[in-house]
């Protein structure tokens, strides 16, 4: 890991032994969090409760990302929160970062995606691969949301296989670059001021020549088209980027980026956030399911009294608790500086899967009401299908884990 973050001192398994399990926290996972981590979680939760939940259903129906909330999210310090304070960020632990993602996604995957992209896919690469000048120029402004960014890696014909990318950056005699090509499925695209664009700098199949560029979206030749007709992540901006002879200065390149490894490191950061984030969606669904089951009366009693609904709820909670423990342990490993991309693959794959199932089961438990935007379940269910697919599909992560188990590469 090319970070210079302060090593976090080891946190004992249960630093807050006086905390007892309470409703919604059967396994007393709160007690395994530090006081600051809980405070951070609670403040983001309050923000989501007050600002996001009342409007998100309508935003989703309208296909609108609630841009008006960006300044407040920045003010709270939610963007790039685990990067150091000297760049205007909050310098939080990975667990605190994960909890922020969880709470944002309790609101909506689209909101979490916005923060994930800004933090893990725009700010992180500038921090990890950028020059000191680039860090100082961009990170404080990105943290304050004076600049919004997006991340251009995926292409329409190269989703799971980014090394096949066709976007090219040609170095000019004066050291500047000309970029041609296009990117697809780019979150935040239409509202971005800058894009982190990944392009090959040489012809050929090798992914060694892949480098990252900071490209301002108002550069001539840079065009953006919003992806319409989405039935998922409707409260999120998704776009296509097109580069036609986009000319950028020599200092646009991220000097320490090199090879496919660089963008994959970014994705590891983002996937880590997703492993936490989807737990928020799962918890939102679970809480909705519990509340509905206790209040909805059918055959003269609450449907929560029927065995079939109790099994549903028990299954959901079991999977959520396991997912929480996976995410928490992974976060502690990450803070200790010895986590691996395969661990992240396992956490992303497992947690997205269980969240998707929780959303689907909740939708079913809610009966006819489950299809309404007034309830969260179907929105989360549809969102999570995107999350299941992006940042390495469920299947691709299966093969990464499979390779780690067998030593045999399924991709070749």
């Amino acid at each position, binding site marked *: 890991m090319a970070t210079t973050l302060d090593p976090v001192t080891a946190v004992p398994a249960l630093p807050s032994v006086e905390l*007892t399990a*309470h409703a919604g926290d059967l396994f007393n996972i709160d007690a395994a969090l530090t*006081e*600051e981590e809980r*405070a951070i979680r609670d*403040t983001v939760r309050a923000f989501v409760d007050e600002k996001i939940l009342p409007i998100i259903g309508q935003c989703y129906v309208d296909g609108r990302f609630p841009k008006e909330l960006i300044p407040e999210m920045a003010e*709270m310090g939610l963007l790039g929160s685990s990067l150091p304070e000297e760049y205007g960020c*909050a310098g*939080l632990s990975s667990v605190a970062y994960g909890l922020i993602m969880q709470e944002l996604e309790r609101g909506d995957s689209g909101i979490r995606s916005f923060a994930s992209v800004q933090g893990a896919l725009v700010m992180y690469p500038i921090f990890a691969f950028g020059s000191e000048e680039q860090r100082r120029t961009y990170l404080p402004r990105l943290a304050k949301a004076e600049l919004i960014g997006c991340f251009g890696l995926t292409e329409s014909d190269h989703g799971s296989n980014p090394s096949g990318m066709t976007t090219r950056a040609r170095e000019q005699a004066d050291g500047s670059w000309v970029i041609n090509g296009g990117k697809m499925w780019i979150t935040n695209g239409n509202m971005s001021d800058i894009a982190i664009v990944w392009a090959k700098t040489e012809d050929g199949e090798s992914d060694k020549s892949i480098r990252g560029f900071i490209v301002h979206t108002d550069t001539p030749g840079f065009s953006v088209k919003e992806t319409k007709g989405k039935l998922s992540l409707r409260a999120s901006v998704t776009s296509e980027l097109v580069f036609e002879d986009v000319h950028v200065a020599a200092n646009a390149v991220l000097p320490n980026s090199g090879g496919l490894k660089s963008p994959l490191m970014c994705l590891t950061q983002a996937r880590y956030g997703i492993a936490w984030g989807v737990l928020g969606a799962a918890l939102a669904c679970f809480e909705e399911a519990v509340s509905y089951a206790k209040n909805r009366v059918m055959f003269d009693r609450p449907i929560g009294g029927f065995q079939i609904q109790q099994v549903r709820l028990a299954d959901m909670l079991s999977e959520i608790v396991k997912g929480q423990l996976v995410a928490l342990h992974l976060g502690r490993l990450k803070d200790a500086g010895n986590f691996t991309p395969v661990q992240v693959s396992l956490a992303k794959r497992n947690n997205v899967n269980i969240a998707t199932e929780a959303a689907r089961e909740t939708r079913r438990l809610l009966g006819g009401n489950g299809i309404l935007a007034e309830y969260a379940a179907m929105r989360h269910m549809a969102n999570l299908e995107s999350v299941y697919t992006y940042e390495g599909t469920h299947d691709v992560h299966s093969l990464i884990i499979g390779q780690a188990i067998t030593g045999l590469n399924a991709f070749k």
Partner: protein
Amino acid sequence: MKIAVCIKRVPVMEVKFAITADGSRYEETGLKYDINDFDLWAIEAALQLKEKAAAGSVHVVCLGPNAAQEQIRKAMAMGADSGVLLESDARTYDGLTVARALAGELSDGGYDLILFGRVAIDSMNQMTGPMVAELLDLPVVTNVFKLDINGATGRAERVLEGASEVVEFPLPAVLTIDDGLNKERLPSLKGIMAAKKKPLDVKPANLDAPQVTVRSMALPAERSAGRIVGEGAAAVPELVRLLQTEAKVL
């Protein structure tokens, strides 16, 4: 402007309380805690006054168990500068003993304002603020929902039942803050991290023996759900009939 805010750690009320088998108190296992709502508005009022004056400090005082440090940290994450916990595990319902302990802590502080929430939603005593004012011989205005401080004097509007009063008072003074004055800010992440480094003093509270004692606790009689008379305007005649013949309120 030097401001003290007295806050209380109270259970989060969105639960169904249970009474212990001996009927002496409510079950505390499994409860979550937070700063009393009204105290959050008092903190916010203090922070806004400090910010408007672009000078001064906000000091938080809390009487409660050791775990109440978490609530003091939250107040500091919102922006308070320092805090003190008067540590006590007593669950007293005697407002005067609490007021005496707080007054003892506040007496030498040289505060321009001492703010309280109007009422603590656990004890619902609504008396500590004016008692502290009386013990410190300070003017006090309770139930404040509009506030304007101008130098050494203040003007406040306080809530009455269906009316309000405009009140003038000199500083230093004690105010109890009601709903409607402001909306509390959420602590920012940097605020939470900075709060760790702010001074928090913990000392034992000296509580007198209480005069008010708890004999027992019980849950209020449950209201049984009534019935749906019908749907839409068509149900009105039946409703009116029930109000006349059954409920006898019309």
